[in-house]
């Protein structure tokens, strides 16, 4: 049985796929920005000596790291809107879910980074009269962030792969566009193959950049955290 491959119907629908890719990058970018910011907040709360701050932060981090992201997405899309009485678009549900989900992973990266900085740095900052938050902002975080870069990039790549889940609630990302094009052209084999290759090229390039950055950091003698 020889199947006749024919990519031309898929290529005719290239604009749909491009739009899908742009939407994928939009969700990834949004979740990345909010995820990193929220992750830093969660990490600082979790490191706080005050239990009423560290426990809730630890709870959020553990719940979102332990439950499957698709379950979270369904909860935010189907359950939360009824609970709080607001309309939730698929994009909003995805952005909220992936932001909090990636924030709980980023939080652990931040925590490992901050904890990897030697005590002497804190002591030195204190000795020249800095308060806790000044020491954190000026001395600790700048050093910690550099060590966290490889782990960050790895997480960002994971995030991009996770955003495909948003297709299941009908947001027009690249995977959803694949579904649409394959139904329109009756060419699922070619469509899904092309889309898999698009994902591969984008993610592979991002992985290579991450690898290069890690090598450079390693060469400059910088230790990294994971």
């Amino acid at each position, binding site marked *: 049985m020889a199947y006749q491959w024919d990519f031309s119907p898929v290529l005719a629908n290239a604009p749909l796929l491009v739009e899908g890719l742009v939407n994928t990058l939009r969700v990834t970018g949004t979740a990345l920005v909010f995820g990193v910011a929220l992750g830093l907040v969660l990490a600082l709360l979790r490191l706080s000596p005050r239990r009423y701050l560290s426990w809730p932060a630890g709870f959020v981090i*553990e719940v979102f790291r332990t439950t499957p*992201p698709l379950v979270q997405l369904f909860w935010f899309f189907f359950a939360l809107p009824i609970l709080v009485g607001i309309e939730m678009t698929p994009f909003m549900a995805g952005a909220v879910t992936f932001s909090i989900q990636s924030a709980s992973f980023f939080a652990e990266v931040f925590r490992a980074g901050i904890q990897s900085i030697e005590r002497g740095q804190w002591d030195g900052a204190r000795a020249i009269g800095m308060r806790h938050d000044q020491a954190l902002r000026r001395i600790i975080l700048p050093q910690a962030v550099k060590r966290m870069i490889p782990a960050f990039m790895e997480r960002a790549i994971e995030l991009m792969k996770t955003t495909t889940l948003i297709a299941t609630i009908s947001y027009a990302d690249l995977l959803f566009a694949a579904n649409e094009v394959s139904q329109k052209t009756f060419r699922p084999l070619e469509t899904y193959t092309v889309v898999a290759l698009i994902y591969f090229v984008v993610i592979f390039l991002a992985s290579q950049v991450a690898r290069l950055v890690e090598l450079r950091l390693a060469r400059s003698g910088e230790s990294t955290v994971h």
Partner: protein
Amino acid sequence: MRWDFASVFDNTDALLVGAAGTLRIFAICLVLGLSLGLLVGLGRYSRNRWIHIPATIFVEFFRNTPVLVQILWFYFALPILLPFQISPLVAASLGISLNSAAFSAEIYRGGIQSIETGQWDGARALGMRWGQAMRRIILPQALKRMLPALTNRAIEIFKMSTLASAVAYVELLQQGKLIASLNYNPIEAYTAVAVIFFVFLWPLVQFSYFLERRLKRDE
């Protein structure tokens, strides 16, 4: 808004069926993914180009594409090339197992490479062949170092099993969807599903933290 879990408890049977489905696909993908990963990992370690290059391409391809895309490819695209249909369980198991094989191959490779060459030399000095040295000397030591990472992989596989619902395989999330649409109770249904996953996974996650701490202490 009043929470009412009675409508969820009325469907305990459906949830049990879902839990059985989740555990089934988890077990299949855990066994296939981790054993295939060992083969691929050894393949990447091989000096023979004909083994080394395909193993590397396999790892790079499956690590750098989303699992959901892989599952949908196996479900919608692959059957066109085959003379038979592919069931949701097979499509989802293929996607998740091959993806896990690629990730665990890197764990095995890192673990094996972390063993000092002196161990190889010692084994060889005792007259062991490569396969014997690997099986009796290197792997037992490497496995101990790899255990935390492999446990994390198992946790990831458990979480990934929910993606099988995208091709309508009957597992917990799929049953949650069903219950929510029959009883108009998405809040309770999806909360219950989330709690069930948390209950399954939390001990496993704590166990992985324990392994990581122990490894850090021992080394």
